[in-house]
């Protein structure tokens, strides 16, 4: 290994200069949520498990007809998850709630992409194939996707599904929030438009939060006093209110911190303007110059690699 000291210091000078101009402090993490997004409020006390939303979703998004589309009974025997053929599913839960005759009362819960305010899938995606739109929708662009499935690893709601049996052009499949429909004035997502019991309310997220809180306040005996999705992982566009604890209907307890915050903070404080790698290069270079001084002849003539 030979170092030409002259080359070396010229390069180091440049490296040193770029270190000097780095910003003095690491950037504080800031939310990238759109200012006034749409959302949906799901009131679990209203859902009767008719599964019309599943049907409408399939139709709007060009998916195959839901499994046993008219079944409102045995279909609920197994807990289903959204997959590559269904962006939303309804599950039935017996949470211990009973009616006046001590008969167990079911709670039905709709599952779909929550369209997080600061979506961790968007942060994770290696190519930016997932984006948070101004409408509030988390949109997937298949033309950028390479199929690494890191979005699926990241999602705290375990929503993105994959076309595992397509060998060459598989896609990530998840609820689109009917982005094309809600962009139009008065447009509703397929599921919200069809819901016969007004379980799903579509609107501006701020408005929905006010509606939710009003319902909680006016019916304190019915509802759990919590809007699920107001603060979870930094807030979600889809929010739930319920009369049974949320974790009993598979809505997981989650931290309030936006999920991308930690990794983005670490990445940006170490790598913005590549200041740390450049500094490390400089330090190692200084060591190299020092430790190899006067060694030229002692070293074997083979270069590098060796």
């Amino acid at each position, binding site marked *: 290994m030979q170092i030409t000291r002259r080359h070396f210091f010229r390069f180091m000078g440049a490296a040193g200069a770029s270190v000097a101009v780095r910003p003095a402090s690491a950037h504080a993490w800031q939310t990238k949520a759109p200012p006034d997004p749409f959302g949906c409020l799901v009131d679990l006390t209203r859902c009767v498990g008719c599964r019309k939303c599943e049907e409408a979703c399939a139709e709007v998004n060009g998916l195959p007809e839901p499994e046993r589309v008219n079944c409102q009974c045995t279909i609920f025997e197994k807990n289903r998850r959204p997959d590559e053929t269904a962006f939303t599913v309804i599950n039935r839960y017996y949470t211990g709630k009973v009616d006046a005759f001590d008969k167990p009362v079911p709670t039905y819960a709709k599952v779909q992409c929550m369209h997080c305010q600061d979506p961790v899938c968007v942060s994770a995606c290696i190519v930016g194939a997932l984006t948070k739109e101004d409408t509030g929708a988390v949109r997937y662009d298949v033309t950028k996707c*390479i199929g690494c499935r890191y979005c699926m690893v990241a999602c705290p709601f375990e929503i993105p599904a994959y076309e595992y049996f397509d*060998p060459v052009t598989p896609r990530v499949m998840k609820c689109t929030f009917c982005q094309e429909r809600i962009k139009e004035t008065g447009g509703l997502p397929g599921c919200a438009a069809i819901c016969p019991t007004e379980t799903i309310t579509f609107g501006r997220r701020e408005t929905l939060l006010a509606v939710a809180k009003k319902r909680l306040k006016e019916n304190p005996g019915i509802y759990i006093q919590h809007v699920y999705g107001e603060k979870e992982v930094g807030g979600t566009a889809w929010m739930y209110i319920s009369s049974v604890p949320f974790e009993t209907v598979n809505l997981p307890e989650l*931290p309030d911190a936006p999920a991308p915050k930690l990794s983005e903070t670490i*990445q940006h404080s170490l790598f913005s303007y590549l200041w740390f790698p450049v500094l490390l290069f400089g330090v190692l270079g200084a060591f190299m110059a020092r430790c190899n001084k006067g060694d030229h002849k002692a070293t074997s003539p083979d270069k590098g690699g060796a």
Partner: protein
Amino acid sequence: MAHKAGPMNRPLWTPGVLVMLVFMFAGALAIIARFTGGIGYVTNLTHARPWGIWVGIDVATGVALAAGGFTTAALAHIFGRHYYEPVTRPALLTAVLGYTFVVIGLLVDIGRSWAIWKPMFNWNLNSVLFEVAMCVMIYLTVLYIEFLPIVAEQFKGRMNLPGILSKLNSLVDTILQIADRILGKVMWIFIILGVVLSCMHQSSLGSLMLVAPTKLHPLWYTPILPLLFLTSAIAVGYPMVVFETTLATSAFKLDSEMHILAPLTRFTIYLLGAYMVLKIGDMLVRGTWVYLLEGTTQTNAFIVEVLFGVMLPWAMLLFQRVRQSAKGLFFAAALIVGGVVLNRINVFIVGFKPPLSENGYFPAVSEILVTLGLIATLMFIYRVTVTWLPVLQASKEVRS
């Protein structure tokens, strides 16, 4: 001790190599199945469990075990300990092959293999994976550049292509001569760059899992996961060199290189010690030791990882008697390598438990065959390379 690396010039088709060929063939069949039936056809991956052994072993573990490349380069070239230069070549070859197979593993694993170039043009600077991908891509290039002088050393001045290709002899030779001359002057840039890039992506591989706080078991989920990944990669560098050098020298019946390996592992006491302090300190600070006696697969895997992969080999290395016996040293090194392998598998597979969709994961046979096939191919190419290129020390071999 005028050691000089030289080609082995031994017969290639030994029984061991034939076994490798069998695994390579089986792996090739599984890969063909992957590209005809899809990932779901050959793996047990699900929507909730999108990463299996192809990521956990082929990629994450592959990168960690290739750390011998940058750690030996840093020691011998940057910190000027030229005494250790004989091990830099085999370590470099391991890194070149390791990273090449990381990329091949990724090509099999990602759904749209043909789109692997897209991150070069679609940047997401918030994505940890983007940074890892860029580092791995550039580092692989750097590794090939670092390896080029070895090829040049063997072939310059004696290019001898057969048949019609012989017309290219002088051209290739000129290219090799020029490359060798230029590289000699600028190689220091690539050596430092290799170390910097390695530090970046070795740590970032740990940051990958920081996006999933609710899925990764708290024994492994810690904000210092990137630091643990970096320190463990640095700690496993020299043990990996010991591990493979011992295997190679005993396979080729060469001198065991103990005079280099024994002092090399004295650094490991400090490097592995630092990792151990961080790992156990992190457990104490976050209070995650409460999980240790849960008795689940996950907590047991953690205990095995720390006890047999970190603490036991560290204690072993403290004894000079262990460091100076070829067997003891190999055993300790193997434990450390095993510990890091288990750590990567734990972080990416065992400790990863999506809370909503409860389904366990165990790799399918065809999934395992792909991984084994790739490892066998790597070993086969290593074998071919040391047979024909000057990588291993040839001085003390007993020639007939």
